[in-house]
């Protein structure tokens, strides 16, 4: 990497803004996954009776089964949100910063 383009990138306010926005998104989504998953794990550890109660009087299906499948589906959705934002919103800004830096 040439020193010149690196210093140009650093002096570009759009670069700092981008890093901040993208890292905020990445860490927010990370925290979402951690909260969802460790919410599930802590219920397993400390309040299993919530997970093991049936979803209705006539059903044998425990609530935890829906919660578990829900965590899997939510993980996929959050993954999709990040990819969509990074590829469609942030990548064009990066390309622009790179064009400016290597002009």
């Amino acid at each position, binding site marked *: *990497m040439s020193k010149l*383009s*690196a210093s140009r*990138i*650093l002096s570009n306010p759009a*670069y700092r803004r*981008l*890093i901040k926005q*993208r890292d905020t998104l*990445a*860490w927010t*989504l*990370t925290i979402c*996954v951690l909260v*969802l*998953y*460790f919410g*599930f*794990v*802590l219920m*397993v*550890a*400390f309040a*299993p009776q919530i*997970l*093991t109660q*049936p979803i209705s009087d006539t*059903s*044998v*299906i*425990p609530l*935890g*089964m829906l919660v*578990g*499948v829900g*965590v*899997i*589906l939510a*993980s*996929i959705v*959050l*993954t*999709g949100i*990040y*990819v969509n934002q*990074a*590829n469609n919103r942030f*990548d064009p800004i*990066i390309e622009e*910063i*790179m064009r400016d*830096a290597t002009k």
Partner: protein
Amino acid sequence: MKTTSKSILALVASAALLAAGTAVADGAPAPAPAEPPLNLHAIVMFVIFVAITLGITYWAAKRTKTAADFYAAGRGITGLQNGMAIAGDYMSAASFLGIAALVYMNGFYGLIYSVGWLVGWPIILFLIAERLRNLGKFTYADVASFRLQQGPVRTMAAIGSLIVVIWYLIGQAVGAGQLLHTLVPQISYQISIVIVGGLIIIYVTFGGMKATTWVQIIKAGLLLGGATLMALGVMSHEGFSFEKLFADAVAAHPKHIQIMQSVVPIGAKANPIESISLGLTLMFGTAGLPHILMRFFTVTDAKAARKSVLYGTCFIGYFYILTFIIGFGAIVLVANNPEYVADLSKSVLALKGGGSMPAVYLSHAIGGDFFLGFIAAVAFATILAVVSGLTLAGASALSHDIYASVIKKGKSTEAEEVWVSKLCVVGLGIIAILLGIAFEKQNVAYIVALTFSIAACANFPILVLSVFWRGLTTRGAVAGGYVGIFGSIGLLIIGPTVWTKVMGMGPAIFPYDFPTFFVLPAVLIVAYVVSVTDKSASGQAERDAFEAQEIRSETGLGAEMAATH
């Protein structure tokens, strides 16, 4: 499938064992008929799969010229292809046969594993995937050591990688030997392992990452297709009603409604610390497996790296939901069935051939000998694909990190490095064969905990700290990394699985199977304290180099380009 004398897949059984904390009934050779029938369906399908993959290897070999071709498939893999390959690399026989077996024995509890093994993927995407692609060349140590001292950091990372790879290989080799020998009794356990080891050496030395990737893609397609058919078979038997499936399972299982109401293995005591430690291990371990991280160097750019995680997560999540249906289907269709159960008068659950057979027998219950042969071939393909990825990851740690960077200090040529790498592949293949044979009768129940703990406690935290924390210095990374590696190994040795069950030394000194709950915080604290107290000039230079690393990590400026040919 008349004779089954051994447990298939010790690794898989071990996942169940580990979790269940009870011995799975197996090992005792059942009296075998003199002339077992040849399992033609399985053999024909093995042979077709092997022929196709050898054809691909031939094709890939002609296109593998540079080091980037060999380690990273020329960086020309698309997002969708890599997503499939990720799924093929990650969905091991442990997750296919193992989760189905866990659900078969314990019901709802198996879902905790499915969830834990999936949630590492979003973390990989948000924090690691594109930064690996932007910063690294061939191994995750490239990234961890990007602005740190090459020698000590790469040595630590390579040790972590190799321990994970070799133990993972042992588990897979033992599993492959037992699977092939169980399904085709005419082939002995030793010959089975030699066949697997030989195939892997051919795939990887000649075809490199290109052949490995396509073996993984084909295997993922077969496994997803096979699991879908099995789940459809179960659901059609149950009139496409989940309520009926679960109600029938509760009726068929000897523990009845308990299979819906236990969040620990049935019969085990609730143990909050162990539950949390298991959760941490599964999630962060996934994000630190060297053969998984290596896949991100094969794609064209950061955009493709991201897309590949999305595709991979969809495939893996879908697959884990299927294994759950398959496990409950096995309770309904396999348990209580004298064709599959070893001795109905003793237990309606314990199967001929051991603890990991439920999914295999379910395929027979649904589709007869033909479908059983297909699923057996898929399970075999699964092991081959995972072992290929592991072998390549291990060889790259030895050749790229240890040989080229530590010993030759970056002065070796690419051709030399690839040549060393191929020697390492042959060496690792032979080691896998020998250890696979040596471990035939060993209790390998600790392998999942060992490999995932080291990945979660050493590889993952050091990687994340080096990318995100300016303050990390070489001393901090190395100290933290070794605490992760040796802390995990030490606590596992004095833990219940190894101390009590494998070595028979009486009550365990450390009462938990998964050490991550204690080791991971220790790693973070050590890496932090050692880094901030590092007043050396080199430490300061490493902090100053963070900004340049961050530009490349975030924008891909200067990242390794895709090959043009």
